[in-house]
């Protein structure tokens, strides 16, 4: 083990303690596994609840704030949060305008969030769910509803949050959020394994000098292993698969995102982004904005994922709005 922790059983709760202490000016603790932006619930605004397993920080914990979500519910390491915690989160976000549950499409998350959604509805709270499923490797397009959510998360959350902030109705927020999800595609490569902090076990083996495409955020097996490619070749192969999937076409305007999984240097991310710009330009697409950093991590896994989101004027308008969350800030 190479990690600085205390007692393994306390990991999730202690990291949330630290998060709230670090951001006490703008964030509050609602329950052991539930945090909210200070102002939540915000009168007249659609509420947005995000969440999932811990260990992917800043996702989802830190994406609460202006132009982002209202409440985040953060489970144990790699384990979806429990129904009771999610219910508490829904109540903390509810201002009577409806509450959107926005999270990644994993079996465990769906099982727990659905239970909580049912309980909340029994209490008369209007709740709807939008699942994020941007990762293209695990299933073909015709089975898109089975796909996992990964690194498009903070982009979708920001667009949903900006739409809600603008005073849009629940139906409008749902429509815009679904559109943001529909237009997002991601694929990643892993270059180094990650270890579970409680056990010190690595979730998969990957020898130095090799890379794996489509590896999951929890070390779930990917689709293809090969010798480590150059930054340029990596960008080209990821883009070819992503662009073919939607498909993205010449003339499309996109957001280009390079996400680091954990141990990846920004140097590597910049090299990949460099090729993304030249490649998309060659294809006749225009890049409205570029994002680079660690938004969705898998502990200290090495490698990057690339996400493209196709924009229309409506999505662009909300994307360009201010975002101010501990995990993601963007100023016009």
């Amino acid at each position: 083990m190479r990690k600085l922790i205390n007692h393994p059983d306390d990991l999730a709760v202690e990291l949330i303690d630290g998060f709230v202490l670090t951001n006490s000016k703008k964030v509050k603790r609602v329950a052991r596994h539930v945090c909210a932006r200070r102002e939540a619930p915000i009168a007249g605004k659609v509420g947005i609840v995000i969440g999932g397993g811990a260990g992917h920080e800043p996702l989802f914990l830190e994406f609460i704030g202006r132009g982002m979500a209202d409440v985040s519910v953060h489970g144990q390491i790699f384990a979806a949060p429990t129904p009771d915690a999610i219910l508490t989160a829904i109540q903390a976000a509810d201002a009577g305008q409806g509450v959107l549950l926005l999270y990644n499409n994993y079996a465990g998350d769906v099982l727990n969030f659905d239970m909580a959604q049912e309980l909340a509805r029994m209490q008369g709270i209007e709740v709807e769910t939008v699942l994020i499923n941007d990762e293209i490797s695990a299933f073909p397009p015709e089975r898109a509803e089975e796909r996992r959510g990964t690194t498009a998360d903070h982009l979708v959350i920001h667009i949903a949050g900006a739409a809600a902030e603008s005073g849009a109705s629940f139906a409008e927020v749902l429509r815009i959020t679904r559109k943001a999800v529909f237009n997002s595609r991601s694929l990643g490569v892993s270059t180094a394994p990650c270890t579970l902090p409680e056990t010190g076990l690595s979730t998969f083996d990957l020898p130095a000098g090799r890379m794996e495409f489509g590896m999951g955020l929890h070390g779930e097996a990917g689709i293809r292993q090969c010798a480590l490619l150059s930054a340029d070749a990596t960008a080209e192969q990821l883009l070819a698969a992503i662009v073919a999937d939607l498909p993205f076409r010449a003339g499309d305007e996109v957001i280009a995102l390079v996400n680091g999984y954990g141990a990846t240097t920004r140097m590597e991310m910049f090299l990949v982004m460099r090729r993304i710009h030249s490649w998309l330009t060659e294809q006749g697409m225009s890049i409205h904005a570029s994002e680079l950093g660690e938004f969705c991590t898998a502990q200290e896994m090495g490698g990057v994922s690339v996400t493209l989101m196709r924009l229309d004027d409506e999505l662009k308008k909300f994307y360009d709005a201010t975002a101010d969350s501990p995990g993601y800030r963007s100023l016009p």
Partner: protein
Amino acid sequence: MSPADFRRAAAAITAKINAECLHLCELDSAVGDGDHGTTIQRGTKAGLEKLQAAPPASLSEDLMSFSMGMLSSMGGASGPIYGSFFQGMAMAAKGHQAADAPLFLAMLKQGLAQIQKIGKAEPGDKTLIDSLLPAIQAYEAALAEGADFATCLQRMSAAAWQGVEHTKTLVSKRGRSRYAGERGLGHADAGATSMALMLECLANNAKGETSCAS
């Protein structure tokens, strides 16, 4: 099986899972995300605490406390799944002071029904159903042959372990492990293994009291 028997079984389950935690994580690592051991360990501990904190109650109420303790502590896919399993058993036990061999069969069946109701998994999907279902079938066959409660329980746990073996030959269609696809072949399913451990502990702690049942 009396409420006292179940409380003893729950303690045994919790101890057993605690001892097997790392092994269950390793099984989950092979194809999933490596956390099943810690998740189920957290769940059984919380379930037992809830149970022991509760005043003496009926078998059904005790099963329900254990279920709620797991559901509110585990998360992941297995939280709702195991929560539903014990909830189903609780529903079938309702109104009975203790469980005799036939009632225990009904409890197992309703536990399975709840799992499938929420999880939508089929036999052969490489989930804990693949150790639970053969266990139930073996139990039912034994009962039909007129075997006593103790024997039924022994056949049940033996069959559960055969089911675990069988999962090595299956390709996962549920949960995180499905992403491994063919790569999962040769690896036993983590949840099927934890289910076999639970059934084994239930068997060893229920059989003593059969006489005073129903």
